[in-house]
């Protein structure tokens, strides 16, 4: 008995109902909305789990025809995986929001929030299930607009305005490219059905690049990443979790669906993916290191992880062209697995960031510290999230990264073009560098937020937030651990999803055993050496060189931790420290010194800024053409007509 | 596969790469001497292989002039003008080393693409070291700020040309090779004098400052 279609249908309906309910009712709707959304997510997950390997198609016809094509949905393993992820994160986000919104109460319109959130989830679900271009675009638009609405919730602040504008601009651009590409494909294949399209045909390079470009923009990969660090800090944490955990994966899903799953590949797209992926993983982690706002840091880390996913996708594409089956299968699994991983740990981290924000009312790393004693549960989840994000064994982040490394390693050792071997080698070097930096980023963040002494009174007086807000990150942390330790079956499952590689056997890692041995060692040595000393521990203040109590300022903070890196990569980061020395005799006896470090985003200042300025300049000139006189417009029409006739005649 | 000459030339090139990663004059000179010594050895191996006796004289000439005299003279000079280290220009010095490794890989591919002089029994991959030396020398000259670095870069470049000639041709006439050696010596001496002059008139030997002399 197949319950898939009804389950999904129910999920759709419930989401829609929840969205409508939020707007319509006037009373205490929040709880009902949460319940409806959560129920929808549960249906979603159970539906996704039931899909298995059988594909099925479900069409909505009649009134939902939309003029050109019916809304049609397809349920297969790939969409199942991603919708399961969506269901899970959306469930968490809905439950989390319920508690979290109290923190924002007064500043956020809850009706508006719940409606947008439900639509957002609905849109993403639509994209994951879309079987034709129209359905895809419609869902895509719902997703983009509702997420934009969620980003702009504090439109009154100028920061929020800027974030919303940049985000909206990026989404518009992405939709524009996608639509153009889809139109072209429709023209080529005379159908809106994805099943009939072949993206990797050599003569359709231009439209597939357009589609890819749209996806790149949406995924926030370099150099289109600039909307991420604006949108994430601006949106509420639960939305950031959903955006970073799932929404950017929509682009990955589309990439998989359009370009990867059919087993052919375009070599040009492979190069683009590899290049942009490599650059953005490096760029993202480097910028993440020097950030001092938790959510900005997490946003840049998303850029890094997306970079790695796209890098793996590029390798998969290349290997498909070069007929390297094993590598292609590895990279394919890596793309899916790391998308899931990133969805899990990044949303976990964003939820924790929300919890911290609601407890301390600050996201500035340099005003936190010492939260481990105040928020023990959040600390535990955050620690697991950080270790997963730094790709440390035995967590899921490591397995994802290991798959990418392994595919690169096999590529470097394979008998293919020599240049590709060398490139794979260089990419391994780059990834290890990125890995080292990511470790530094998350070690810094964890240590500055949770350890040491509190750096502000707010952090001093923080207290643990509600149980629900603790339970959700904790559940995700457990999932991270499970996905890491029992990665073997998952890897096999993901590999089977690809129609061509289901028989390929992949190298595997005894990560579960290693983790078990490690744990056994740790417990044994704890019991052997540390525990029996319990009564022989004396407590004393931290070594202060005999001067007296240490101030909160006397421990390294986020910016100082990253300062060396900032100076080493000063050119890329545009990292400059300004000094302000004041006083009556500032040469000999300065009375005030102030040091301020500024960073100007190279891309924004050198590329996007001038480009925007150019557009504005052109606008100013072109606006003269639009004088508002009907005669002028008639003149234009006339001129165009004449021009077309001339062209026709000449042709 | 590797033969002796190849191994020696590649070793010389590796020394040149290591040289390009150091900003210290004395380390540079030491590594230059090592590099030239291995070139002399390569020359010796070539002499063995081809049985050309006049090459032995050239080897002795290289060792006396380029391995011993020139580095010694330059390190004396560096001491004299207190040019201990070079801060580098255009590119950070550690990056120069990585770029020169890239150039090394490039010269490997380039050498594989060279037309072979099959008749004289040379192997294309021998040229890897020579081309790499040439490129590294040029890069070295480009990335150093002080005149001493330019001289060392020039010498490395010259080593590359010499090595190319030795490994890829049947061998230049003896007299020309010796002449080149003497030329190098003279060039270094004159270069040293220039360094002194620059030092004297500008109080430092930063050649980027010479740009300011243009009208």
């Amino acid at each position, binding site marked *: 008995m197949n319950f898939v279609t009804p389950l999904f249908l129910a999920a759709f309906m419930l989401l829609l109902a929840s969205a409508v309910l939020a707007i319509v009712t006037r009373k205490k709707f929040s709880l009902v909305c949460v319940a409806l959304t959560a129920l929808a997510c549960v249906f979603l997950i159970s539906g996704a789990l039931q899909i298995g390997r059988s594909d099925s198609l479900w069409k909505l016809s009649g009134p939902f025809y939309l003029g050109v094509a019916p809304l049609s949905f397809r349920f297969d393993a790939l969409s199942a995986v991603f919708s399961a992820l969506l269901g899970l994160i959306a469930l968490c986000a809905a439950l989390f929001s319920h508690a979290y919104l109290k923190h924002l109460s007064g500043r956020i319109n809850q009706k508006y929030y719940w409606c947008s959130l439900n639509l957002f989830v609905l849109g993403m679900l639509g994209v994951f299930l879309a079987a034709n271009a129209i359905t895809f675009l419609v869902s895509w638009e719902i997703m983009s607009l509702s997420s934009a609405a969620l980003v702009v919730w504090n439109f009154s602040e100028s920061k929020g305005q800027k974030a919303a504008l940049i985000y909206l601009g990026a989404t518009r651009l992405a939709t524009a490219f996608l639509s153009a590409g889809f139109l072209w494909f429709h023209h080529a294949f005379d159908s809106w059905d994805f099943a009939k399209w072949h993206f990797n045909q050599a003569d359709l390079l231009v439209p597939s690049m357009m589609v890819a470009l749209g996806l790149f923009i949406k995924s926030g990969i370099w150099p289109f990443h600039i909307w991420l660090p604006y949108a994430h800090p601006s949106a509420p944490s639960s939305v950031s979790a959903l955006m970073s955990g799932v929404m950017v994966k929509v682009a990955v899903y589309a990439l998989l669906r359009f370009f990867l799953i059919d087993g052919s590949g375009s070599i040009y797209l492979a190069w683009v993916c590899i290049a942009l992926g490599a650059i953005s993983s490096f760029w993202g982690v480097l910028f993440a290191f020097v950030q001092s706002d938790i959510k900005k840091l997490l946003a840049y880390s998303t850029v890094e992880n997306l970079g790695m996913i796209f890098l793996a996708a590029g390798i998969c594409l290349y290997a498909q062209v070069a007929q390297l089956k094993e590598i292609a299968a590895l990279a394919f699994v890596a793309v899916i697995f790391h998308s899931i991983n990133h969805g899990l740990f990044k949303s976990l981290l964003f939820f924790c960031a929300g919890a911290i924000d609601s407890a301390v009312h600050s996201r500035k790393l340099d005003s936190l510290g010492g939260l481990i004693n105040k928020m023990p549960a959040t600390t535990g989840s955050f*620690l697991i999230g950080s*270790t997963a994000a*730094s*790709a*440390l*064994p035995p967590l899921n982040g490591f397995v994802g990264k*290991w798959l990418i490394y392994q595919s690169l*390693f096999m590529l*470097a*050792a394979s008998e293919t073009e020599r240049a590709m*071997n060398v490139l794979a080698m260089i990419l*391994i*070097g780059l990834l*290890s*560098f990125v*890995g*080292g930096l990511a*470790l*530094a980023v998350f*070690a*810094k963040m*964890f*240590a500055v937020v*949770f*350890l*040491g*002494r509190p750096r502000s009174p707010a952090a001093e007086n923080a207290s643990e937030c509600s149980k629900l807000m603790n339970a959700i990150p904790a559940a995700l942390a457990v999932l991270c651990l499970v996905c890491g330790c029992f990665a073997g079956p998952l890897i096999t499952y993901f590999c089977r999803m690809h129609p061509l590689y289901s028989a390929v056997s992949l190298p595997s*890692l005894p990560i579960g055993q*290693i983790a078990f041995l*490690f744990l056994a*060692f*740790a417990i044994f*040595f*704890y019991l052997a*050496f*540390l525990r029996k*000393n319990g009564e*022989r*521990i*004396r407590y*004393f203040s931290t*070594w202060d060189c005999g001067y007296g109590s240490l101030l909160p300022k*006397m*421990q*390294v903070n986020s910016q*100082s*931790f990253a*300062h*060396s890196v900032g100076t*080493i990569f000063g050119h890329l980061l545009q990292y400059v420290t300004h000094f302000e020395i004041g006083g009556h005799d500032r040469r000999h006896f300065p009375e005030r010194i102030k040091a301020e470090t500024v960073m100007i985003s190279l891309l924004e200042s050198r590329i996007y800024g001038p480009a925007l300025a150019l557009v504005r300049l052109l606008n100013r000139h072109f606006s003269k053409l639009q004088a508002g006189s009907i005669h002028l417009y008639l003149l234009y029409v006339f001129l165009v007509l004449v021009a077309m006739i001339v062209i026709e005649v000449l042709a | *596969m590797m033969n002796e000459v190849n191994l020696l030339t590649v070793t010389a090139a590796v020394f040149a*790469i290591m040289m390009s*990663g150091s*900003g210290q004059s004395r380390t540079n000179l030491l590594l230059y001497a090592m590099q030239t010594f291995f070139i002399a050895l390569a020359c010796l191996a070539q002499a063995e292989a081809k049985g050309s006796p006049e090459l032995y004289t050239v080897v002795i000439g290289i060792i006396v002039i380029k391995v011993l005299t020139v580095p010694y003279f330059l390190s004396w000079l560096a001491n004299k003008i207190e040019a201990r280290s070079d801060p580098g220009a255009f590119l950070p*010095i*550690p990056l120069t*080393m*990585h770029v020169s*490794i890239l150039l090394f890989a490039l010269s*490997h591919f380039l050498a594989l693409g060279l037309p072979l002089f099959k008749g004289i029994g040379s192997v294309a991959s021998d040229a890897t070291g020579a081309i790499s030396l040439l490129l590294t020398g040029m890069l070295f000259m480009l990335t150093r700020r002080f005149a001493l670095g330019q001289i060392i870069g020039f010498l490395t470049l010259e080593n590359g040309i010499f090595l190319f000639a030795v490994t890829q041709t049947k061998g230049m006439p003896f007299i020309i090779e010796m002449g080149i050696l003497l030329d190098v010596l003279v060039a270094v001496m004159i270069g040293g004098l220039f360094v002194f002059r620059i030092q004297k008139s500008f109080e430092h030997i930063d050649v980027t400052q010479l740009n300011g002399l243009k009208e």
Partner: protein
Amino acid sequence: MILTSANLVFIVTLTIMPFLLIGVIKKIKACFQNRVGPPVFQSLYNLVKLFNKDEILSKDCSWIFRSGPLISFSGMLLLCLSVPWLPLQPPVPGCDIFLFVYVLALIRFFSIISSIDAGSPFSSFAASREATLSFLAEPAFVLALVALGISAHSSDLALIFGQPIENNRIPLSVWFFSGLALFLSGIVELSRMPIDDPSTHLELTMVHEAMVIENSGPNLALVEWSYALKLLLFFGLIAQCFVYSLSKIIALPPLLLPLSVLVVMLALGCLTAMIESFSVKLSWGKNPDFIAYAVSMSLLSSLAAFAMNGGS
């Protein structure tokens, strides 16, 4: 884990060798300073002493503080049992290059956060230094191993190292350059001169020593023990690189292989001691230049790996 003769040798050397290495380094340094120096096994005696001592903890620190040494020791021990630092099959199979690198990273992560935990100004800036240095050196370390792996057509460390000589397909130059790269990045990872001075008393210049400045008693013992194991692990791998590259020139009898690796490890200890007696600790700003050398060596090693791989 089955108790074979190889495993027995492995475990016996694992218990003695780390302390011997540290002892030899200290002894030779003392020699250069006209001192008699501590007994060779002093670090072992120190360990026993520390395990019997009381522990002082900072009031500001949490459970993270004590987890750092514990995780670092357990991880090191795990690595020492699964990485073939002696040319024998390790007791625990299945460690590949990337797992090795990332278990080291796990240890580093926890040592960084545990050093910041107490909120000491010294250990927290040392943690920042450790993070900076290690990610700069990471590519050198990984690429050196990967170059070996590419030549051996496997990423399993047991198939790269720990092989009998006749099975060893990796060319001399790859062994040699990887050995150099591992040595240079090992200096960074092990915080030895000229990156970090392990015998200095100056808190402001230290890296590793300042990170563990708050540890005491059994906690400190675990830190020191895991450091000794790390030294063993790195020196074992480096020594194997050099021994294998030597074995390409001189035929070594297979039975002598583990022995000669042990000898080379001690020789590396001597070399380290010499560097530490005569070299100058680099200025903080010059450390990236030093690490650039390590990266260069690993790049050369990978180039060699490709050049030699071409024939097959």
